[in-house]
């Protein structure tokens, strides 16, 4: 069993138009730069991205946005990503804003076979009640807003509390950046570069790991694998980080 591909382009060569892709990374840590760049160099368009913050200014996913390849984003944060904000407000893309913890949990749920779950996060807000703008019109008017979600009471620690139903996310592809991966796809992360990567990996039908270093099977300590190879279909070495 050897899941390695020659390079990032080969690993995403079959990515079709309209695919959904979950992408790991938070800020500039743990971002699968090489895979994102390979998508940019490839032709796929009309993409849906699931990602915490959709890249930083002028790098990573922000470049995919710039080249008009993304139709829809599920993310928790826009922050100072100017291109992301501009396309959202100009109605060029649809954005589903999700609390960060709910986003991580929805990805894990997708990977773990959970269809939906009840969380307290977002109760009493537009996330549960509906109304977060999904798509703006060219004149800045709101064309579509997020729907109201089911809210239900459960007992937790002996206290009745309200929870909102959130559905799992699965994607066609998932892109992961790891520190070390072996040829079975077992992967290890370093420090806060782990972030969304394991969750994203579980949610993808085809999960591609780019690793700073690819090693032979048997090198990694089975007690210290952060992402077991069962969640990984393709592995590519991407030594340099070129944002």
């Amino acid at each position, binding site marked *: 069993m050897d899941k390695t591909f020659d390079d990032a382009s080969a690993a995403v060569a079959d990515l079709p138009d309209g695919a959904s892709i979950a992408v790991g990374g938070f800020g500039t840590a743990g971002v699968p730069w090489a895979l994102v760049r390979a998508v940019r160099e490839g032709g796929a368009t009309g993409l849906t991205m699931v990602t915490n913050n959709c890249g930083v200014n002028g790098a990573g996913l922000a470049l995919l946005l710039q080249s008009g390849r993304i139709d829809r984003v599920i993310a928790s944060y826009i922050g100072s990503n100017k291109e992301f904000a501009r396309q959202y407000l100009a109605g060029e893309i649809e954005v589903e804003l999700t609390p960060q913890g709910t986003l991580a949990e929805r990805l894990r749920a997708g990977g773990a076979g959970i269809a939906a779950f009840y969380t307290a996060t977002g109760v009493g807000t537009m996330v549960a009640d509906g109304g977060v703008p999904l798509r703006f019109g060219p004149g800045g008017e709101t064309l579509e807003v997020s729907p109201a979600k089911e809210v239900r009471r459960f007992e937790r620690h002996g206290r009745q509390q309200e929870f909102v139903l959130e559905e799992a996310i699965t994607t066609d592809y998932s892109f992961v950046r790891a520190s070390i991966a072996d040829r079975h796809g077992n992967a290890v992360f370093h420090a*806060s570069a782990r972030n969304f990567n394991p969750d994203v990996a579980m949610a993808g039908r085809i999960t591609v790991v780019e690793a700073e270093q690819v090693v032979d099977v048997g090198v990694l300590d089975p007690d210290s694998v952060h992402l077991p190879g069962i969640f990984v279909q393709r592995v590519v070495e991407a030594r340099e980080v070129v944002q």
Partner: protein
Amino acid sequence: MNRGWSREEVAVRAARELRDGYYVNLGIGQPTRVADHVPAGIDVVVHSENGVLGIGPTPSRQLEDPDLINAGTELVTALPGASFVSSSDSFAMIRGGHIDLSILGAMQVSSSGDLANWAVPGVAVKGIGGAMDLAVGARRVIVVMDHLARDGSVKLVESCTLPLTGRGVVDQVITNLGVFDIAQEGFVLTELAPGITVEDVQVSTGAAVTVRFPETPVRGCRVAVSESCER
């Protein structure tokens, strides 16, 4: 606006709410600075949403690790006893009620503890980030903020006009004017910044303020940036 405590003094005052053994999450911006003022003898573990438990001070140039950042994407260090986890595990800590204290910024706080800090209609949205998770999940939520908005409008209100981040989630607010508990009767002023009167607070607050200074002056010592306060 610059009356009472400076922003750094507010951070110092907030740091006095830390208890030994607390796991705390400090929001981006001013709340992050609370970590610089942990009182002597108090041992806390600082959590960051992006999967770091046990954040230490800013690294020197030589110790910088691009993979080791906080939720504000600032370079940080990890203290002995730290651990790194995935985002879902990191938010399990928050959402599961394992964070003892979350210190957050806010645009508005209502007298029933509603928090608004993520969106202003008509203004480009910054996103939600981890704020809604922290507001609901942390055992105790303290808001640190300027008492008035830049345009002079009130931020402590009867009822939030901005989109909520969480409903009934705030336990305490610390502003440049003083310290407020959120109680059954709404905002309860428990402490005034130096040179500030109850009347100053009342005219700058968009809701009724009950005054209840502690009888024993446990918090009565003057807050200073460079000295920690005896309990």
